[in-house]
């Protein structure tokens, strides 16, 4: 089961700042565990940001994004109470998403 996500969407000067945290190991496939075995490649490939149900950012990322990814995006033209949804999908087919209202 994927670990928790956390998001904050705050109205700033001229834009809404969306900060989202994801629990994910972002394994490169190069790291060895304590038994010396290679940990298989396991990383988020797609991240989507939606504003009121409409995609506004679509990201493709590699295993070179740091473990437990933290992203900040900026949206324009959104208002208090607008619904932001962020979802991710990894190379093993796992996914997760979280929602927040612009505050």
């Amino acid at each position: 089961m994927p670990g928790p996500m956390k998001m904050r969407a705050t109205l700033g000067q001229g834009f809404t700042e969306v900060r989202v945290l994801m629990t994910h190991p972002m394994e490169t496939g190069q790291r060895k565990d304590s038994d010396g075995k290679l940990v298989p490649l396991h990383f988020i490939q797609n991240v989507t940001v939606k504003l009121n149900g409409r995609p506004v950012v679509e990201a493709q990322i590699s295993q070179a994004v740091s473990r437990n990814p933290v992203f900040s995006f900026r949206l324009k033209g959104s208002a208090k109470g607008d619904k932001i949804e962020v979802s991710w999908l990894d190379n093993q087919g796992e996914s997760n998403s979280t929602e927040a209202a612009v505050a």
Partner: protein
Amino acid sequence: MACAAQAQDASKEIQRYRQMISEGSPAELFELEGETLWKKAQGPQNVSLEKCDLGRGPGLLKGAYARLPRYFKDADRVMDLETRLLHCMLTLQGRSREEATKRVFGTADQPSEMESLSAYIAAQSRGMKLDPGVAHPKEKQSVDLGRALYFHRAGAWDFSCASCHGEEGKRIRMQDLPVLYKPEHARPIIATWPAYRVSTSQFVTLQWRMNDCYRQMRTPEPNFGSETTVALIHFLTATARGETYRGPGSKR
């Protein structure tokens, strides 16, 4: 000359690096996990920790961390956050010390219960002044022991805490070393523990910090929640007294 200038620039850039990573810290993920664990019924008694008294009364978390370590009458000793949490796991949940301390320091893949709980509880003191207990005789004794431990040389490499944290303006590799017996140095450091450590993707606590310093001092291993580790944490926190808590933070 050129070399000194270069070193100074490097140091400035490292400062900026730390500032940037502290802005992008996933520490909050651990707070979420900690909240779940705080409310989760566990142990032979099958109860949660929600009735645990961290010094402000059973279940009261607001500002509790900022007032630790302190003397607890029911245990007749000084406790820091983690030692107190362990106490509650034993007394409220009926768990054995062996089971509850089996994995107090987690890994990036599997954070420990203690780490997530520390994140959650410390976060409830954000914005409050650090005010550990220093009035009770046992509290005074604890701070004094902590100070003595700070300067006590032992281990295969003859180190005391002051061997690295004893002189201003020094570094290990690129890491600046705070002189933690000086309030102006202890304040910003203690105010941001516990913290997410980016180099290992782990959430780390002060008990872990003491443990890992002793590992590098080449001594045997201190017991989790022992008088020694609590006294050191108490001494450092008493030195940082009055600083506004702004953790859980982010470390290299």
